[in-house]
């Protein structure tokens, strides 16, 4: 009896060391204890069976994702999740939002706590590889910028020599700032916080001479400062920040679904179909429109969706232009010009592959 116990214990230790070895891919062959795991990730079915999408957002950046005084979420990141829910369930409200800070977001996605991360996240190579994210198309092209107080006399990056700059950690901004200053040989003092509210509050208190973040975030959070008009955003752009939703790598069906829902928003605008006029296109003879709305062909089936998934998205959430105007456009406090976030047909960067 004793001997068998020893044998078992020993075999477990062997399995343990083998599992903890450096390269994981072959670890499953070592012992009886590790064979029961499901080997295929199936986020698509998980979401479909749950009947609800779990969406990771920031909840703290007006125009992107923000909880209003009525307790409702709004913003372009939020609408992306509503669009996915519309495509899956024909119901834009079948979404549960989870607020995640910059540091929590990737782990939440990796561990499956959220199905999709729609949280003004910059698409970078290392995030796509070593962090294990599968990015959907860019929903907002941004760039990092610097905000200073008008009376500080700071006009450009070079004026920031030996100044204190407030930064939020866990973002690409921290590295971009270091890169730019290193390139120009400017010494500065980063004052770094984890919490976006504390970062801006510290700048507001005057501890920092400048604050850096994505331009859109500076506009959006800057509007919440005690005296917004006393601040200005420098023209110099520090970096390009393509903001895109992401899902965990390894489930192509799921990442395809999210991607094509976003393309549907763009294609809707390109075709001139919005939530108000979509009814008029029901009898359209244009084959492009027919395929898009699902009255011809079987495009949705390829994603496991209904063929009219794009029509559902437009009906419930609107096309990209509607989403943009509702959250960031001239009628909002932010009033951000479309700029590079214009369709390619109008000189912008947004482009949808063909729906065929």
């Amino acid at each position, binding site marked *: 009896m004793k001997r068998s116990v020893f044998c078992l*214990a020993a075999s477990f230790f062997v399995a343990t060391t083998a599992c903890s070895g450096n390269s994981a891919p072959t670890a499953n062959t070592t012992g009886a204890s590790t064979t029961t*795991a499901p080997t295929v990730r199936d986020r698509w079915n998980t979401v479909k069976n749950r009947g609800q999408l779990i969406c990771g957002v920031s909840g703290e950046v007006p125009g992107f994702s923000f909880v209003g005084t009525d307790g409702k979420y709004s913003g372009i990141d939020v609408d992306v999740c509503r669009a996915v829910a519309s495509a899956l369930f024909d119901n834009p409200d079948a979404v549960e939002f989870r607020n995640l800070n910059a540091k929590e977001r990737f*782990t939440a996605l990796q561990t499956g706590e959220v199905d999709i991360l729609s949280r003004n996240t910059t698409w970078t190579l290392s995030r796509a590889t070593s962090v294990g994210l599968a990015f959907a198309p860019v929903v907002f092209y941004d760039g990092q910028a610097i905000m200073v107080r008008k009376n500080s006399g700071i006009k450009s990056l070079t004026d920031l020599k030996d100044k204190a700059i407030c930064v939020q*950690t866990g973002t690409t901004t921290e*590295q971009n700032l270091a890169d730019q200053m290193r390139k120009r040989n400017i010494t500065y003092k980063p004052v770094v916080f984890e919490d976006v509210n504390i970062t801006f509050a510290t700048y507001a208190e005057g501890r920092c001479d400048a604050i850096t973040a994505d331009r859109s975030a500076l506009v959006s959070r800057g509007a919440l400062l005690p005296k917004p008009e006393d601040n200005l955003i420098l023209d110099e752009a520090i970096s390009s920040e393509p903001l895109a939703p992401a899902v*965990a790598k390894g489930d192509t069906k799921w990442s395809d679904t999210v991607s094509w829902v976003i393309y549907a928003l763009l294609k809707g605008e390109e075709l001139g179909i919005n939530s108000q006029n979509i009814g008029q296109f029901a009898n359209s003879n244009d084959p492009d429109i027919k395929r898009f709305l699902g009255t011809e062909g079987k495009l949705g089936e390829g994603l496991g969706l209904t063929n009219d998934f794009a029509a559902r998205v437009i009906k419930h959430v609107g096309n990209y232009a509607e989403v943009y105007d509702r959250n960031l456009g001239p009628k909002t406090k932010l009033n951000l010009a479309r700029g590079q976030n214009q369709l390619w047909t109008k000189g912008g960067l947004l482009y949808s592959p063909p729906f065929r």
Partner: protein
Amino acid sequence: MTKPPFWRDQRFWYIAGQLIAVFVVAIVVTILLSNLSRNLQQLGLQFGFDFLNQQASFDIGETVVSYQPSDTYSRALWVGLVNSLRIAITGIILTTIVGVFAGVARLSDNWLVRNIALIYVEIFRNTPLLLQLLFWYFAVFLTFPKTENKISIWGLVGFSQNGIQLPWFTLSPEFSTLLLGLTLYTGAFITEIVRGGIQSVSRGQWEAARSLGLKPVLIMRLVIFPQALRVIIPPLTSQYLNLTKNSSLAIAVGYPDLYFVASTTFNQTGKAVEVMLLLTLTYLILSLTISLVMNWFNRTVQIKER
């Protein structure tokens, strides 16, 4: 006489118990590790510490040792560790001073002194440390005037939004906040430990010392306190450990300690498991070192029975 069956033998159960414990631990560890490796595999992630040699490319605001963004992640983590040690060591020294003084004050014959110490303890022991840190940062250090119109005391100490300027060096508002916050918070607990320790020394010791004609200060220093130390040191060790671990709240007030740098590293490399392992190990080593030193100190004050 026949030998009793082996399951009636106590020695058998001693060994079997140990084996069962090992067995259970092995199973749990195996399950955890296989779960981890399976999840990493599914995400296409590789376990490894190679990232430590990569360029960190983020800047750190406050460094004692030299550091540039072009240095490696391991260098950045080292900078964080040194910053943590700086806070822990100065914090432990200051909080001991605060705790001992307030602890003695709690037993003072002077009504005012006694009650000030009491209020101090109750306020600082009964509010969350994070709240206290944010209070010191936003309500105290950031309300100091701009650098141009700093408050100066005899030209020696200057107070401004850039921190506390001493003749030789400047303490940043972030460092000052953390140091003050940790010192006062932990000091409140040490106050109670010191008070308890002093009260544990029997009345007879006071009376005996007084009958020798010693003054109160000398009674405390030569007779009471050395005996109280026997009771004080073990719980004091826990408070030192708490202070060291609580220093990781630095992240809330922007002081780049080890935890802070580690979480930035984790965020940029995505190496959650590896960074958490390093962090856990480092704090474990720090805590064990403090315990070791304090245990040695504890032995020196215990009664030596000859």
